[in-house]
């Protein structure tokens, strides 16, 4: 796998990224009326971008913009060039992301680079265990592993016992999963008195971060190495950021992304190492480029060189999502989506609390609603049916089950203590 580019000199990186940024802006300005308007409003043309730092002259974009321009507004290529369309839940409208053939090739290469950096080779047997809510990740990881030449086992709707059996019988050497699912697997093995799978040597964990102590515990327990990967579905899921052997943050794929860290309140850029919101500009995307996209993820960016020799900047683990998104089993659920769904089913948004139960084996979701008069139906059956309808819609949208629970207002207040989400 050719990864020379990850070791370019800082000077060469600046030129490389400037060239890509300029051509991306030339394309979106010509082809996407939304971006042209944004730039015209600020009286900026692509020709005003003469240094990477000039990117600050451009306005930010957000998930709101993605929704406003649904369905076709943000494509930078004719629709006939799009060969794949991923859709995922948005607040009012779905969010769509198109890919040209070239985009898919790029992503394959990028994902393969991520996996290779983690130590995956063509000798490996790679098993992916991710929830259907992470379909974009699944797709990209599967193709990336194929590009590396590994044998890949994509997730099928199997029981956890079956998955463990496949892991044993097919001698899985690399498992790709979320931290919480790996913990869950470990507990199941423990419960059934199963030994750790002999051939498993590496777990690649995506979708969410993990605390160092839990990580070491998992590694020790299973006798494996772990690597983390980071991505945002709106840009590129797998391969956007990945750990090297020194595990000091995610190396950003700088040939495809330009990253900035800003103060989420003022929008001002923050220096290297300070905590702020990650803003991403795609540099080599054809179908749906993103310009200064606010990810809502709070992290730090380090520009100092890494011991592995890669010269790409590194991101720390995501510390928080500022836009009311919660990560459950790697799936990002926005409170705004939940409110929109409550509005849809009940016609209003009652007081609620999202309760993420972690003491069970796998994170379980409960949505507590404070009982009020509007919620009541003439019959218990009606109440029940509505609750079922909500749960069904929830699972349809997020690919995760969520139990609805009606509680007294006081009880909710007492438990919530002003919070809307509790992870316990």
């Amino acid at each position, binding site marked *: 796998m050719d990864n020379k580019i990850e070791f370019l000199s800082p000077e*060469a990186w600046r*030129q490389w990224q400037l*060239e890509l940024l*300029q051509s991306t802006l030339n*394309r979106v300005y*010509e082809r996407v009326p939304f971006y042209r308007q944004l730039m015209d409003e600020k009286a900026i043309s692509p020709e005003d971008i*003469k240094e990477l730092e000039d990117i600050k002259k451009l306005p930010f974009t957000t998930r709101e913009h993605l929704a406003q321009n649904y369905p076709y507004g943000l494509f930078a290529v004719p629709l006939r060039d799009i060969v794949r369309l991923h859709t995922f839940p948005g607040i009012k409208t779905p969010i769509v992301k198109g890919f*040209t053939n070239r985009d898919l090739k790029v992503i394959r290469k990028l994902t393969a680079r991520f996996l290779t950096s983690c130590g995956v080779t063509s000798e490996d047997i790679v098993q992916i265990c991710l929830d259907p809510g992470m379909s974009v990740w699944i797709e990209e990881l599967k193709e990336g592993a194929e590009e590396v030449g590994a044998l890949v086992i994509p997730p099928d709707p199997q029981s956890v016992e079956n998955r463990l059996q496949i892991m044993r019988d097919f001698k899985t050497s690399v498992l790709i999963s979320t931290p919480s699912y790996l913990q869950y697997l470990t507990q199941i093995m423990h419960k059934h008195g199963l030994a750790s799978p002999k051939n498993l040597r590496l777990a690649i964990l995506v979708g969410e971060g993990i605390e160092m102590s839990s990580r070491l515990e998992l590694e020790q327990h299973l006798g494996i190495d772990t690597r983390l990967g980071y991505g945002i579905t709106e840009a590129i899921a797998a391969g956007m950021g990945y750990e090297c052997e020194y595990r000091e943050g995610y190396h950003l794929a700088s040939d495809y992304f330009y990253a900035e860290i800003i103060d989420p309140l003022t929008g001002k850029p923050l220096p290297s190492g300070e905590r702020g919101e990650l803003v991403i500009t795609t540099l080599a995307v054809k179908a749906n480029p993103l310009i200064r996209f606010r990810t809502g993820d709070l992290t730090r960016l380090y520009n100092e060189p890494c011991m592995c020799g890669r010269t790409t900047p590194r991101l720390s683990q995501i510390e928080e999502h500022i836009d009311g998104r919660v990560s459950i089993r790697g799936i990002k659920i926005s409170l705004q989506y939940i409110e929109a769904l409550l509005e849809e089913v009940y016609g209003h948004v009652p007081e609620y609390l999202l309760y993420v139960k972690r003491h069970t084996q796998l994170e379980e979701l409960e949505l507590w609603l404070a009982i009020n008069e509007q919620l009541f139906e003439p019959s218990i059956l009606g109440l029940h049916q509505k609750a079922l309808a909500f749960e069904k819609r929830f699972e349809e949208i997020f690919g995760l089950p969520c139990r609805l629970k009606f509680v007294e207002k006081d009880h909710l207040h007492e438990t919530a203590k002003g919070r809307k989400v509790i992870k316990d």
Partner: protein
Amino acid sequence: MLVVKNLVTTYGPVTALKNISLHVGEGEIVCLIGANGAGKSSLMLSIMGLVKPRAGEILFERQPIQGKDPPEIVARGISLVPEGRQIFYPLTVEENLELGAYQRFKKEPKESIFHDLEQVYQLFPRLKERRRQLAGTLSGGEQQMLAIGRAFMAKPKLLMLDEPSLGLAPRLVDTILSAIKVLNKEGLTILLVEQNARKALSLAHRGYVLETGKIILQGRAEDLLADEDVRRAYLGKDYRKFTD
């Protein structure tokens, strides 16, 4: 090796190049593709110092060369094979080649120049056969070989070729392009402008797509060959503009 940053070139009121940034690494073949009038030749002339850029930087081996005169740029190691060959018709083939080494005669021993002359003859045996013939009597393909040979005689580190296959029969195009490949294998860095985008991309390592004086796309040659926009605008039957 060559780094161009934010280059702007104007002809009177007409802006030919708008904020062009690109680079050519040592040992690479980089090609520029684009329709007529996109600015490909202007870019080469600007690098060569034949047209003075209005703004921007051109670095060759980390030294700024913008605003320098063409002889100095040749002396630093850049040669251009211009569009339409522009060889000296009344002179013989060998005289043309020797003129290519004009700047070297005072500085280098004759042997090294004759050695390079032999190399050109090896690359293009046809030129050796016709070494005493007047350049004006050569066929189009032979003239192109001569133009490349003459540029090579300046012993460049970077060879720039503007439309080397223009007006040539397909078989000759292949001869010229494979000669370029040989030169590159021997260590010469190459910047190539070519109408025949498919041929150019199958030869090059990387490419840039120019349109109305701007770079709108770049990438590895194999990625550009597979790119839908490039296919439509430059490889297919449909000659619409890229940004239409």
